[in-house]
């Protein structure tokens, strides 16, 4: 299959063919979801980090991800009103805007990105991985939907290691709580061989994802591993891991990236292919979605490419070697959940970001600190100082929010970015050392 740059709608936005394909996949998924009442499909709401898509597929459940819904609302400029709606109903201005966007969307009729009503979930699979807010979020949803709620606790990898006690705990939860309840809700008997088959497919797509993300090591990088990375991780972090669609998508994407690499091209931005790669950055933290294009533009206009990011590891740290393993299906699901980026200790995150800067030969670290997300944000100032110390590369800090437009100050962010790029220049020319 020949990758090509396809002009998409609206006409002033350019997208890779893979981005178009990804968008189609997501659209199909939302159609499947919104048509669940007609098709009698049952729906499980769950989270991105530590999602158990392969397991849900064993029960023919359609996966609904409230975080992704909030992202879609953010991209479509609807999250602001949803958040205000939730705040009017008594939710604090201090808490996660994903939650408030989701609750506000529910209060406004739960209309999905395809303009159709999203169905109420038949089950809430609370996969509690690396984010305390998840726990409260699903307590809030349970209050509204009054449906069965399954809790899967992932112990935190505080000491940088996975212990047998952690694995046993998770496997027991899967065997004795998660699977029996999913059987009950779906009416489908669990078949471990079916799970193995899905896990095999997951691993195949994961190989290609890692290959794609690691092409960021090339100069110029053929990908943007943050803004472009959002598109790349969509299928595997969402409802497609374990499917043939995911295998096809990542193979297609790999070929597309290979082509760009062979031609020495940089990533494709909404305004066309990147010209010169002036700055290579590692970015820590989620992006802002309400001004996504504007935010991205601040980078590519300055010739800055993100060569590696931590956000593209929230749904799995595959580049550190993890693959879903069909020979150890439940243990493998447990290890997957344990290893996701937000479940890793602060020292582990510092090690990762330092490795990225060194291995991807980046000019420095940029932290986008998200007001909503304490899991990411608490400790990031220490991370910044430590990575700077270890790598000798400059680091910078900006603050935005996930889906709350009130916390995206374009002028402020742009100023900081411009100052940062100047700092990188100074460092390159040796002036930084003297200062």
């Amino acid at each position, binding site marked *: 299959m020949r990758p090509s740059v396809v002009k998409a709608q609206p006409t002033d936005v350019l997208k890779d063919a893979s981005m178009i394909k990804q968008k189609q996949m997501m659209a199909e998924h939302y159609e499947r979801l919104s048509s669940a009442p007609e098709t009698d499909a049952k729906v499980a709401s769950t989270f991105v980090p530590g999602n158990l898509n392969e397991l849900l597929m064993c029960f023919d459940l359609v996966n609904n991800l409230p975080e992704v819904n909030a992202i879609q609302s953010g991209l479509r400029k609807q999250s602001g009103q949803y958040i205000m709606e939730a705040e009017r109903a008594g939710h604090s201005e201090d808490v*996660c805007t994903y939650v408030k966007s989701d609750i506000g969307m529910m209060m406004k009729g739960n209309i999905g990105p395809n303009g159709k009503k999203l169905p109420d979930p038949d089950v809430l699979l609370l996969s509690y991985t690396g984010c305390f807010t998840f726990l*409260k979020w699903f*307590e809030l949803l349970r*209050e509204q939907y009054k449906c069965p709620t399954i809790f899967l*606790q992932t112990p935190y990898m*505080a000491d940088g290691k996975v212990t047998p006690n952690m694995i046993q705990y998770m496997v027991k939860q899967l065997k004795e709580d998660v699977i029996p309840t999913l059987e009950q809700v779906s009416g489908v008997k669990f078949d471990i061989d079916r799970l193995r088959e899905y896990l095999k497919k997951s691993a195949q797509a994961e190989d290609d994802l890692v290959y794609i993300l690691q092409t960021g090591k090339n100069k110029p990088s053929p990908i943007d591993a943050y803004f472009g990375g959002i598109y790349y991780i969509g299928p595997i972090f969402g409802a497609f891991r374990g499917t043939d669609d995911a295998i096809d998508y990542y193979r297609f994407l790999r070929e597309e990236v290979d082509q760009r690499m062979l031609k020495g091209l940089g990533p494709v931005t909404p305004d066309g292919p990147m010209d010169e790669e002036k700055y290579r950055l590692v970015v820590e933290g989620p992006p802002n979605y309400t001004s996504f294009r504007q935010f991205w533009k601040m980078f590519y206009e300055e010739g800055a490419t993100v060569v590696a990011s931590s956000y593209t590891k929230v749904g799995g740290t595959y580049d550190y070697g993890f693959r879903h393993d069909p020979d150890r299906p439940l243990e493998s699901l447990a290890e997957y959940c344990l290893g996701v980026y937000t479940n890793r*200790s602060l020292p582990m995150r510092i090690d990762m970001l330092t490795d990225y800067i060194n291995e991807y030969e980046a000019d420095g670290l940029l932290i986008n600190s998200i007001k909503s997300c*304490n899991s990411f944000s608490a400790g990031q100032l220490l991370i910044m100082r430590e990575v700077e110390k270890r790598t000798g590369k400059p680091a910078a800090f900006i603050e935005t929010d996930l889906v709350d437009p009130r916390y995206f100050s374009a002028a402020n962010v742009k100023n900081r970015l411009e100052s940062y790029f100047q700092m990188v220049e100074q460092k390159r020319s040796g002036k930084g050392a003297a200062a």
Partner: protein
Amino acid sequence: MTGKSVSEIVARCEELYEDLNFTAAREWKDAEPGRKVIGYMPVYVPRELIHAAGMLPMGIMGGGDNLEVIHGDAYYQSYICRIPRSTIELGVSGRVDFVDGMLFPSICDVIRNLSGMWKMLFPDVYSKYFDVPQTYKDEIGGVFYTGEMREFLYDLENIGGRKISDDDIRASIEVYNENRRAIGELYALRAAQPWKAPASEAYLIMRAGLVIPVEEHTVLVRDYIAAATAEDRPIKDNSRVVLTGMFCEQPPLNLIKSLELSGCYIVDDDFVLISRWLLGDVPSDGDPMHNLSQAFLHSSMSTAAKYEPDQAEKGQFLVRAVRDTGAEGVIFASTSFCDPALLDRPILQNVLKEANVPFIAFKYAENSGQMQPIREQAGTFVDSIKLWSAA
């Protein structure tokens, strides 16, 4: 009984509360060579294990309103609560340099990440994120928790250089049972006769238990109960309220006093929650780790930091607290930017609406200084309670 007066006991507790150099714990450590102190943050750790190791568990509840945070603010964005920044301040300013280990309980992402920061900032000090189960079946959460406690016990043995026997733990369980009983009596007295044991005093009594040996604290609590019971204090026309949301970052003492001045009798609360976390006695015979695990799973406090598996049970702890203490309303006092408390609040408020219990809500920080708005809000709440009950 020591025969001390209420004011003498409270003055001693206030001195301990205000001492951000933790002199009492330092003195305990210095009294004998080889003694160790293990610090812990809110909400819960099994102090019985630390005690069984012959060490002093010491609660670190942030820096309160008397600590000037200079370094700590450089570690956190403006939208993070205050307790981690003041705790870092305590660390980098050397105020807890005598502590041989630090425990960061599973409560929220901020405290969780602080555990990693502590490892980075103080690499020579033992620090541990203390994970607890959020699932409560014996064979699942119970086994996991017992495993976590065993790992912790192993670490304590290494720090202390000696084995800890089951008998050591059983003895410590008994000591803490006694302390919980005394605290239970204090809370019962306050609920029954809040004019005799005001919350601002009870709070100081509870805070003292974080920095002195548990045996000494049990005596102190009982001394206070005896002195407070004996003292004649006037009954005020206050309303009885339950205070909730203060389970992690503690309120400044002035906030509690302000609520009382505005006409509240605080008859139940969730501050210094570790002291009341386990409900009732933990059996001191049989396998002590199993007993501690069972108590945690099946007989422990409800709070926003814990998952409630049963929707019907969600928030009922508040309704029960209201009924049991004869309270007339609930005050939600949550720390600014506290995810657990603030995310939980709308659910709890719905439960109270169902139960026809009036409530108000406000936010605070451990260093809140301006009490006038809180006093006005609480005063209006009390007035409205009086009006409703009169109607």
